[in-house]
């Protein structure tokens, strides 16, 4: 799980920016404020997270606190996967 942010950075850079300026996305950069993703992009991001981390993102979890920066997503993924592990 150490590489969540690095994988995300590559995904965001490749998928949303086609390689343009991907390196300047900071851990706490707001995707919305930086104009990197819009609401369609959020749906795309959710699909990516569900497919790659085996989680289900609930409607109530689709909030900026969970999804609007790489640091926020990392915290969210770690929380979700720990919850899943604890349930097994």
């Amino acid at each position, binding site marked *: 799980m150490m590489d969540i942010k690095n994988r995300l950075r590559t995904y965001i850079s490749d998928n949303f920016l086609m390689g343009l300026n991907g390196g300047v996305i900071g851990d706490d950069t707001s995707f919305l404020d930086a104009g990197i993703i819009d609401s369609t992009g959020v749906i795309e991001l*959710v*699909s990516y997270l569900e497919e790659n981390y085996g989680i289900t993102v609930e409607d109530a979890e689709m909030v900026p606190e969970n999804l609007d920066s790489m640091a926020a997503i990392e915290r969210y993924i770690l929380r979700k996967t720990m919850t899943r592990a604890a349930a097994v």
Partner: protein
Amino acid sequence: MTSMAASVTEDLLDLDCGFVVDEICAQLKETIVRFRRRGAVVAVSGGVDSAVCLALSAHAIGPERVLALLLPERESSPDSERLAREVISLLGVPYERHDITSALEGLGCYEARDEAIRHVIPEYAGGWRNKLVIGGGLSGQFNHFHLVAAGPDGKRVERRLGLREYLQIVAATNFKQRTRKAMEYYHADRLNYVVIGTPNRLEYDQGFFVKNGDGAADIKPIAHLYKTQVYALARYMQLPEEIVSSIPTSDTYSLPQEQESFYFALPYQQLDVALWHVEKGRPAAELAEALGIDTEFAARIYADIAAKRRTTRYLHEPPVLLAAHA
């Protein structure tokens, strides 16, 4: 109400309808002449926006220079055509009717949409009806879409849409608006007329239109008017009561669908007031006072308006011409 809230009333509700109608009609006529066209085509849906646009066009250049179009398809509500015919008849405007179902079948509209729906709801089949519902924005979530489908036995299923299915359903459904626009321009070209676009200010500002579909037009006579004001003009021009008192619907999906559950998240009366406050640069606290809601909810309304503007900005963009660098 505070003095600022009173100015909302002044701006939105106390419209000088006679002045506004005269102003729009003068500009309509002047623009049609400047474009060297001889009349106007208006597709009439049965809703208040197209009814007002038809009435303004008829008033501006005479009903004989206007062509109204009825463009139903197999999923349109029969009430829409009945109301459209009522307003066309009232205004004495010539009209043509084209059922666009076969064109949509030929384009694969229904097939592509239903294929995407079955990815989400495998039991979806003939006799089922569907609609999209937007949600999340006013709860502090990112906006996302749910698909609602109802079977012939009344069974109702709701699922959140993933990216591929969402995009395919929207893309296939957009054939409806684009096919209608193709028919409008066919008649406009045939008659040397302009095409009138019917968006109101809410739809235009919030991007509730299909690029090169209902978003395409030569003149948009009511795109500067809030929905509340469009209803006021409808009453002033004595359009049929059923239209004047109607609740806005999309009539794009086969299940009945009010615009507020599909896209806007708020009834138009409240959204008009909210948009007015945004455009005047007023703080959320003032909107909260005007609508009788708490400031946190008003702030979410502001955020939702901003999010929809951001997401749909590209719809307003003309084609980009690239300059060659020396």
